[in-house]
């Protein structure tokens, strides 16, 4: 039973890659290149919390369209501050943040919800609604943003197929494994095809094999043209991915580099093979929690 469901999940995950790419391309006109116009631009951003703690100190960086960037650093280094600034949960103490060319400080409180619709967010603790099925959890994002019933019926099964959850439509979150729950969260974040996806410790609660699955899914979303910013402290994952890394320490950027080994335009399958390389020999079915 577990094997069959795992297989069908895998098939469901792999098959429709081109669909996802097409969908994301529709939302983002230009094909992903790191040389594109910057999607995120931090200029001398500072965030001091009321209690005196420093969240971010003179952070300046810019992330291009379609780029994949890791944000690393130990707890309290300011990763989450960056994420929360990006969804405009609070304002920076100093400096400016531009997202897709727009100055965040110019977005009025009233317009913030509309701004957030352009950003998909994934968290370590999934933030799924426990009393709704997988389908309803994803549909919720569309309902909340005023999607029509027809729209929901068209989009939700689609995105769930792309994330490999077709067989779990009517399960509740507590009936799913951690990896599957995170897939639901990603499906919810991506159902509107936002041009920017933020993931705050997306694999923090998951075992290595499942983490690779999640990264693979995010990678596929990234390849389709969506800018992806991942905050993590999983250094082995970062090392293997060979993407641009911004390291924070006590609110300061201490490293910002694109690894020399950057492999451009790697297929998802190649990506997965490379990621699994070096993982202890074991069957994924057993590993899956």
């Amino acid at each position: 039973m577990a094997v069959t469901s795992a297989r069908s999940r895998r098939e469901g995950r792999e098959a429709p890659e081109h669909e996802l790419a097409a969908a994301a391309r529709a939302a983002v006109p230009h094909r992903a290149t790191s040389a594109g116009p910057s999607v995120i631009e931090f200029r001398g951003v500072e965030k001091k919390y009321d209690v005196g703690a420093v969240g971010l100190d003179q952070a300046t960086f810019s992330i291009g369209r379609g780029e994949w960037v890791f944000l690393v650093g130990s707890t309290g280094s300011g990763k989450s501050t960056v994420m929360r600034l990006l969804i405009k949960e609070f304002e920076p103490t100093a400096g400016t943040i531009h997202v897709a060319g727009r100055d965040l400080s110019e977005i009025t409180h009233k317009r913030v919800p509309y701004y957030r619709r352009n950003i998909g967010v994934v968290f370590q603790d999934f933030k799924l609604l426990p009393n709704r099925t997988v389908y309803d959890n994803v549909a919720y994002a569309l309902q909340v943003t005023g999607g029509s019933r027809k729209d929901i019926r068209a989009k939700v099964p689609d995105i769930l197929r792309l994330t490999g959850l077709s067989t779990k439509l009517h399960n509740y979150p507590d009936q799913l494994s951690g990896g599957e729950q995170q897939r639901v969260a990603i499906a919810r974040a991506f159902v509107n095809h936002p041009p920017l996806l933020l993931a705050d410790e997306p694999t923090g609660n998951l075992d290595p094999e499942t983490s690779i699955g999640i990264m693979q899914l995010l990678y596929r979303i990234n390849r389709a043209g969506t800018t992806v910013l991942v905050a993590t402290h999983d250094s082995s994952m970062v090392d293997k991915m060979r993407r641009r890394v911004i390291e924070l320490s006590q609110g300061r950027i201490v490293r910002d580099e694109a690894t020399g080994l950057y492999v451009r335009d790697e297929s998802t399958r190649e990506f997965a093979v490379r990621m699994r390389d070096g993982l202890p020999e074991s069957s994924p079915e057993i590993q899956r929690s």
Partner: protein
Amino acid sequence: MKLGFFTREASRALHRNAAPSFAALATILLTMLVVGVFIPIVQATTGAANDVRKRVLVDVYLTRDAGQSDVTRVRELLLGTENVKRVEFVSKQEAYAQQREKDPEAFELLGTNPLPDTFRVTPEDPDDVLKIASALAPEAAAGGKAPIDSSIDEVRTRRDDTTKILQVTRFVKLMAGTLAALLIAASIFLIANTIRLSLYARRREVEVMKLVGATDWFIRWPFVIEGVIVGALGTLLAILLLAIGKIAIIDPLASDFALISAPDTMPFALLIAVMMGAGIAISAIGSGLSLRRFLRV
């Protein structure tokens, strides 16, 4: 579509929050019952009081043997008195006819007409009644009152009755008002509490809604609707109880008691509308209070 979504969310929350919702509903029910009972009562008593007030007259009874010339003379006298607006003459015969219509049997037994000729004097202002009365019948040195004309038997006002009725009405109004105000405050508080608990129970949902970009009002509406559903249900139950009470108790009695069938009370349909409006307003205010205080959007 949207309204459907809000209502579904609201009823989902009501199910999960059954106990506090029920408490709020019961309070609203009680409040609305009190309001629904007191509005007609206050109206009826006010109406009755106004009725009496309007009839504030000075009755001038003539002696039994007053002749036609006496009547003419007294009329002139009355018209010449200060503060008098109108003078109306009711002859013995007219008075007899009026009274007999009210109580035929008693007057049948009486046989003869015991009623005197009467002048009904309407003052310019109801407050002038006493002035007129004392002008027509000044206090005599030996005590009692001596009418200024020998044909006047007695001068009477109905001021005492009026004052009493007005006092009672005022008291009833004050009590009803206080009770209603207290109950309304309690209702608002309980609705606010229900919504607050609901907010707490659904804080995850609110968080997710904010994340995926729901507008502030999109997040608020389900809670407001939840409160309004509680308020409307409570009011509906109260109206139902009142309707049963009206049909079972009031209506059969209405033919016997003038106060109950008082024409000044508002029609039942309007009363229902007023109660519904009040119930919904109360619950909306309650929800709004909690949302302002506890929902940071």
